[in-house]
């Protein structure tokens, strides 16, 4: 049948894996996953066949993990590595086993149909049933009077940079994005692609790896990021020369993400990629995420977030004050009177 030869060829490929990092993940996780030739770490769960959970996901983030799990396309499987979580139908791989071989086995069995693809964890219900105030669903706040079936549209708010009142998009950007430090979940209000307000939902996990490779990846240099992970010592001159020639340092805007002790993303980048030897401890006692991220464009904000080591980042998250609640709701309701065109 047609499926068999396709499944056989597909089984020869590198296994596309989406990595969800939890607490207690070994600090050389990134290195061991990237040097393993059997698998390829993808940046979105839609491209992955297997969800690899490394480390234990705490209970507070389990709903996010379940939602993430349900977003993978079928046929899918979950593999737990160094993890204390227990997901039904997931394969657990012990710490000493070869992760590449296990993943390849799981992938081949999935494709051959030996393994059943994992069903959804969450129930199949639409995100909102129609809901209003009255008994027949009528009435309610805002432009639409009640919550429409599906999802509502975003409401307007003034922009920080030029005061234009367009739609502000608020959402929790979750812990399992590849460009967020593991475990960090933020509530961001975006006006276009510029951050208007930030609140911390969950601080990043403690972890001691050098995340210079993430910065290189964010700067559009995934091959150099992988090279940096593979190189065992910092004194690889080819890597230094390639980073220098790529203009990565010049691409980072000057005085981006400046903390109160005077270090900016460029200085931290130098330190993380081993260009500058002087190891400084970022003094971040008074800086919070709202000082650092508000008003930055998305790319710059990601560079700032990933330029800190985990311990300073946890301090920064603790220093972040919550924005005033319902400030935006007020603004949205004022426009309810002369809306009409929005529904």
């Amino acid at each position, binding site marked *: 049948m047609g499926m068999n030869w396709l499944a056989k*060829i597909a089984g020869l490929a590198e296994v596309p894996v989406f990595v969800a990092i939890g607490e207690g993940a070994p600090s050389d996780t990134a290195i061991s996953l990237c040097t393993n030739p059997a698998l390829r770490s993808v940046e979105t769960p839609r*491209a992955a066949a297997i969800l690899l959970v490394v480390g234990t996901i705490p209970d507070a983030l389990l709903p996010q993990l379940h939602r993430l799990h349900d977003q993978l396309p079928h046929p899918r499987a979950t593999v737990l590595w160094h993890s204390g979580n227990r997901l039904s139908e997931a394969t657990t791989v012990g710490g000493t086993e070869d992760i590449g071989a296990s993943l390849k086995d799981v992938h081949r069995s999935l494709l051959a149909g030996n393994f059943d693809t994992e069903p959804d964890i969450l129930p199949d219900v639409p995100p909102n049933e129609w809901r209003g105030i009255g008994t027949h669903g009528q009435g309610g706040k805002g432009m639409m009077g009640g919550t429409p079936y599906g999802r509502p549209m975003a409401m307007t708010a003034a922009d920080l940079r030029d005061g234009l009142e367009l739609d502000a998009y608020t959402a929790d950007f979750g812990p399992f994005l590849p460009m967020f430090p593991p475990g960090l979940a933020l509530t961001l209000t975006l006006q276009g692609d510029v951050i208007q307000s930030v609140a911390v939902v969950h601080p990043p996990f403690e972890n001691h790896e050098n995340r210079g490779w993430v910065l290189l990846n964010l*700067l559009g*240099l995934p091959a150099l990021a992988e090279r940096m992970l593979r190189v065992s010592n910092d004194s690889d001159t080819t890597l230094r020369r390639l980073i220098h020639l790529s203009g990565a340092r010049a691409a980072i805007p000057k005085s981006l993400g400046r903390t109160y002790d005077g270090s900016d993303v460029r200085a931290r980048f130098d330190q993380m990629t081993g260009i500058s030897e002087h190891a400084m401890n970022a003094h971040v006692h008074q800086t919070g995420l709202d000082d650092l991220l508000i008003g930055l464009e*998305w790319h710059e904000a990601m560079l700032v977030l990933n330029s800190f080591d985990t311990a300073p980042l946890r301090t920064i998250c603790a220093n972040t004050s919550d924005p005033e609640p319902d400030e935006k709701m007020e603004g949205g309701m004022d426009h309810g009177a002369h809306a009409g065109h929005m529904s």
Partner: protein
Amino acid sequence: MSFAIALIEMLTFMIFGVFLAAVLDAFFYRRIAGRSGVSLLMPLYAAAAHLSRQRLTTEAPDRLNWFLSISGFLALGAIGLAVVPFGPQTAVIGMETSVVLWGACESLVVVLVFLHGWSPNSPLALIGAYRYVAIGLPIMLLSMFVLIAVALPAESLDLRAIVISQEGLWNVIRQPLGLPLFLLLGLSLTLRGPLDYGDSADLAGGTSIEDSGANRAGWQVARLAMLVGFSAVAASAFLGGYLGPVLPGIVWLALKTLTVMAVIIAMGHLLARMPVARMLGLIWKVLLPIAFLDLLLAGLVALP
């Protein structure tokens, strides 16, 4: 009949080109990352792996535009290859204003990449789409100045005439600023490296974040097809296309196209991407004046 033969030649060129582009991409990535070797069949395995998975949609997507953006992107790459002459009067699309047609393709790419990010109704994809337009538009200006400069000595907007005008000297030598600027357009059209504002890593895949299965395979094939088409246009406009001493014209064209593809892929892996506001300023304040200079020099040289 020769039209049918040219069409078949073009299809074969495109298929081999897409395959070789995927192999080159994997090769350069691995060399630079410090890994060893690449199997020639890796791209096929990866494509099979994509196709073996489900094609998902999101809540309330724009289905028609999702499909059109992928198939349209593929078609635009093919049109780029179609305007390129394989021999003295052999081009699938042979018209007096083929440079204008290529310009239309460039602008439609901006539209289609935007639609690709718009369709899934997903926030990170939408940011990628809007960001791409900001860079895609001025890059197009650069490329058109450079192509006009190339058209000056040929006294024609026909790509066939432009190739013939290089019989004495290739345009890469007599208009040295042209090809580097044109390669930037290539990076932007194929969403690579320093100009990959549509599918970038800081948006977890940008416009392709919600693509799975056949959609993902289709978009990647379309990007590679655009790379082939663009490289063929660059090879014809700057490197003399099918001109060359001993081998048949199409072999020379294939070699030159491969060279341009390799250069673009290498640039994609070796150059850093700056935040979009900086790149916008760089294009308008630095690169566009360089394009003016290129045009001025080309005009002075072309005058009798």
